[in-house]
């Protein structure tokens, strides 16, 4: 018997996107004809969606946040409200292809799988967002999405491990998610909290997979860009990237290399008038203690930082890197 799935969609005022993308989802659910559910988490803080959804998508469950709390908290709220253990986390700007759920569910059935990501086609075209790797070089970690690169990405049609499943398009287990206490608020207001979550899962011996048999489209029309300048978004990403490293870099040589590189970056930024970079570092330094607090002792990690990178850099490894 096929398991039912709860689809949790954290939303701001994304009614247009929902109107555009929910029908495909409901078509999928109708085809499945199970006890699936759609939970809209209204994170506007203004309960905009409840009445609207009653009219346009009456089968949707709307969970309203009393105040805007950001993606991580809204997602957690929605997952808490889900009746099924399998939860498909979905952003409002994602449009699913018919039959996308079953391949994901199949992967989740495998042992130690924490999350499964479908093939996410950027803007519905060939570029694949959901193949994720990490690159470490000279004291700094870089996120790599080979599916977006113009270079050959290897076999993107095969199921494979990835470093993380993008929070807006991933199938997870509610129980596993809650067991890990959900997403880390360290990364608020947005971005890389899904990386953190999945990396923690990897360190705990779980796996995160990419399932190309499941296809969704990401029509990138996020609402954050409408609210803040791109420089601020970049600053938050950079801050979170540092926090991620401070949370997970474990071996002394990596840490020494990283701290040395931080000094270098600050010096280069000062000498090169790149004051933005200084701001990024300072933003991260504001939270460095929280990041350090989240670090797990080696005894509680099944894999090291390097081992996770090795386990998830399939495509790069296949290229001999």
């Amino acid at each position, binding site marked *: 018997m096929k398991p039912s799935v709860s689809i949790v969609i954290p939303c701001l005022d994304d009614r247009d996107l929902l109107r555009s993308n929910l029908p495909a989802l409901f078509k999928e659910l109708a085809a499945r004809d199970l006890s699936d559910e759609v939970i809209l988490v209204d994170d506007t*803080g203004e309960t905009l969606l409840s009445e609207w959804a009653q009219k346009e998508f009456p089968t949707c469950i709307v969970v309203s946040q009393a105040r805007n709390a950001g993606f991580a908290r809204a997602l957690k709220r929605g997952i808490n409200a889900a009746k099924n253990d399998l939860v498909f986390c979905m952003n409002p700007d994602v449009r699913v292809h018919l039959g996308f759920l079953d391949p994901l569910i199949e992967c989740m059935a495998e042992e130690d799988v924490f999350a499964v990501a479908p093939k996410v086609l950027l803007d519905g075209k060939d570029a694949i967002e959901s193949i994720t790797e990490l690159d470490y070089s000279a004291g700094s970690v870089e996120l790599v999405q080979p599916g977006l690169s113009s270079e050959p990405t290897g076999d993107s049609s095969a199921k494979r491990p990835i470093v993380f499943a993008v929070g807006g398009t991933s199938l997870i287990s509610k129980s596993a998610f809650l067991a890990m206490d959900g997403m880390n608020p360290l990364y608020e207001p947005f971005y890389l909290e899904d990386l953190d979550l999945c990396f923690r899962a990897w360190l705990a011996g779980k796996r995160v997979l990419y399932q190309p048999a499941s296809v969704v489209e990401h029509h990138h029309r996020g609402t954050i860009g409408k609210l803040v300048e791109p420089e601020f978004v970049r600053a938050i990403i950079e801050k979170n990237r540092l926090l991620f490293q401070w949370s997970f870099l474990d071996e002394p040589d990596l840490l020494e290399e990283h701290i040395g590189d931080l000094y270098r970056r600050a010096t280069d930024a000062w000498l090169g008038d790149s*004051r933005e970079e200084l*701001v990024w570092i300072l933003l991260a330094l504001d939270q460095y203690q929280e990041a350090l607090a989240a670090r797990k002792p080696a005894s509680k990690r099944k894999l090291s930082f390097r081992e996770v990178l090795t386990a998830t850099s399939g495509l790069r490894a296949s290229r001999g890197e």
Partner: protein
Amino acid sequence: MQNAKEDLLRLFQLPPSMRISLIVHGFPPNERTGVENYTRSLAAALVRAGHAVEVFAPCPPNGLPHLALRREETDGFGVTWLAAGPDPTGPEEMLNPKGVASRFGDFLDRERPDLVHFQHVVKLGTGLIAEAEKRGIPTVYTAHDYYAFCHRYTLLRPDLERCETVGDPKACARCDQALAVLNGVEKLGDYQMGALGEQLSKSNRVKLTAALDGRSKEAGFTKEDGRNALELRETLDKRRAEDFEKLDLVLAPTKFLRDRLIEGGLEGKRIQHLPYGIETAELERVARDSAVQRGSASEKEPLRIGYFGGFSKHKGVHVLLEAFRQQKEPAELSLHGLGTDKPYVELLKKLSRKVKAKWCGAYESHELPRALASVDVVVVPSLWVENYPIVIREAFAAGRPVITSNLGALPESVRDGVDGLLFEPGDAKQLALLLDRCASENGLLANLAAKIKRVHSIDDQAKELQRIYQSVGSTKVSRAKRDLPASLRKSVARYEELLARPSRELFLQTMSGIGELGSKLLKKSAPDTIELLTNALARRSDTQNQLRDRRRESDWVRQTLVEEERELSALTQKIDWMSEVVDGREKAVRDLKRERSWLSESIAAKKLEVEALASERDDMARARVDLDQQREWLERDLAAKVLEVEGLHQKEAWLESEVANRLTEIEELETRSEWQMETIAGLKAQVVELEKKSGWFEETIASKTAEVEAAEGRVEGIEQALVAKTAELEERELAMREAAKRADWLAGVLEDRTAAIGELEKKSTWLEGLLKESRERAKHFEHASGLHESARDELAQKLELVERSALESEQRIAEQAETLQRFGSIEFELRAWLVSSRETLIAFDEKNPSRDAGQDPAAISDAVRENWESLLHDVERVLDFDEMEVAPDDLGLRVELLLDRLDTEERELHWRRLEMDLVQERAEQWIGKRFSLLVGELRDRIRSWSTESGKGESR
């Protein structure tokens, strides 16, 4: 390392309450006049008040690249120097020098001040205001002058006259054009403020005045220049006004200036009156320690006058020097300051030497108290509408009264007769009187000094400004406080807070934070910061990469520049060569154009000449045809005349034969009458006399003939010349008309002659018949006595007939003489005279067969005939005057000769007429006498013959 960390921490633990940037067009030590020194004092005061101050000011390049920024720290505040290279090249660059605003943006990004306080933006540009506004940084502007609405910021025109117009772009455009006139005057020095009349030539003064009056043409501008200047000025004024509108607050040190700013278009509610403060501590010590003492014990000491400030024309230093020269009371004048207007400074130095004023030159701020202590009174002789001269505050703080121009905001600072004295701006005489008054009037200066109010200190003003800064800063709305989702607010606020920090602070804080992080993450055995940094830099350095990239880029650019320069040099040489070629070509073209023009004119003239010549040629051809026709006609006519003459010759021959016959008869008559011979002898004597006259006539005619021959030669020349020249043609035509007239006249003469000959022939016939009849009757008379009486009657009748015939002949002679006189013809007169003489003689001979002894009629007749022939020949030659020996190419000479000849001929004609009159008169007398005598003798003889006949018959 540890010390450095501590220093950084100390900095962070004592954050300044506000970060203030002061922007000024010059700053000590590079610039040391009013606003610059004031800004320095303000910076120091703000630092003392606990604020972080950064000054932004231009400086001479001193080897730095154009627009390079260099920061240094002094007296607790930072100064960022902008290396300002070349001077602006036009009004647009004057308003906003290229690249400066962008570099100011870099400064703002680095320093991230909480507020920018502009002191002056001249040389820097109003674009700086926009840069601050763009970054949301609150702005305050202190108006030290009129720059907000006067691009020359002094309300002073280039002729150093005060501008009474505020905000009229037309007047401002004229000002620009007037300044452009000064731009064209070499060796004028710093003329941006204006030029003194004596610095300009008369023509430039005229141009300058014309430009300011809007008489573009006289100023050397076109109407289009005027329109362009106005358009540019309107554009620039608009841009400046837009930038000034971006200011949050404008501070006006005087009420006078505040009113002018409002008049100039600034919003009144954004203008606040705030007097300056100055550094007073040291100056007040001067007031205490060396107060003005004139009027008491040392009243006989010379008055010590001081000038402090810039040596610029609009400061009126030359007025002070002139007043000092005119002063009567003992005084000393010391001049303190510096100037960039070299010609004006030289002029002042020259004047100073002349009036023995002390030239002290520039002074540092710390030297001012001592300098002020050395003077009794300070003079501020400004010619421009001064705002708030700091030197007045400084003098007051030092307890020195001030004498200043009664102009602009100066009376707001100096109360006339209270703490200083005022004089009309530029009035050296009045200033001299005031200075003499200060020198001579007991206690005047001390009284003025005593009433000086306490001067506002810079620290007082810093406190006032602090309140103003905070109020202005609070009007700026933080981005974080705007309507954002709650989950973003905190992050955004922190982000903006960090962004608002100076780069220096960010860097120090970052380095410190990394150190802290490292201390938590790294083991104690880990390398220290320097080693970590060194290792990291050894692995990678963005700065090094950038530097290398820049160096490579720079090398490439340099190499490219060298190549470009080489190419440019080659091109320049080529251009020079081409220019020379072009110059040569242009010159050649100009020469060719001139030549073409000259040729065109020549061709036009030649065409006209050719046309005229063609016309002349045609006229000549026509005239020649006419002349040829006339010549042919004349030749024909002449031939006819020759034939006629030949006929006449034949007739003459015939007459001669007749005369011979008559002579034969006369011989017979002579044999019959001795008294007739005596009579003839008398006649012969008269004929001898006539012959003498005739000889004289011959000689005259011979000479005339020669002249006529010469004239004929010349006439031939004239005829040839007439073919070429119109003028000659006209003369020719005149001559031809004369010839035609003469021909007509000759025709008439010939007709008359023909008629006369006819008459003569008739008469001759009649006389022959009569003579024959007389002879027959005489024969009958001799043979028929019976018929004596009837024959006597018949003879009487015939005698009457002869008498009547003689009378008729006499009348005819008179008529012919009249005709001759009328026509002025020598020939006709002679011929008529000869013919009639001959007729008379013939008639006489016929009627008087007996002749006096010694009177040979044949000889008389021969002589007369010869004379007649000769005269006739002469006349014919006179009439034929075609050959004139005159050079054909000298028309004037020819005409002159012709006229001479005409005159000569006229005189000759007149003379001949007179002569002919005389000859005729004598001939008439002679003929009349002889005829009467002969008639009487004939009657007597006939009577005697009758008597003898009667006797014979009776016998």
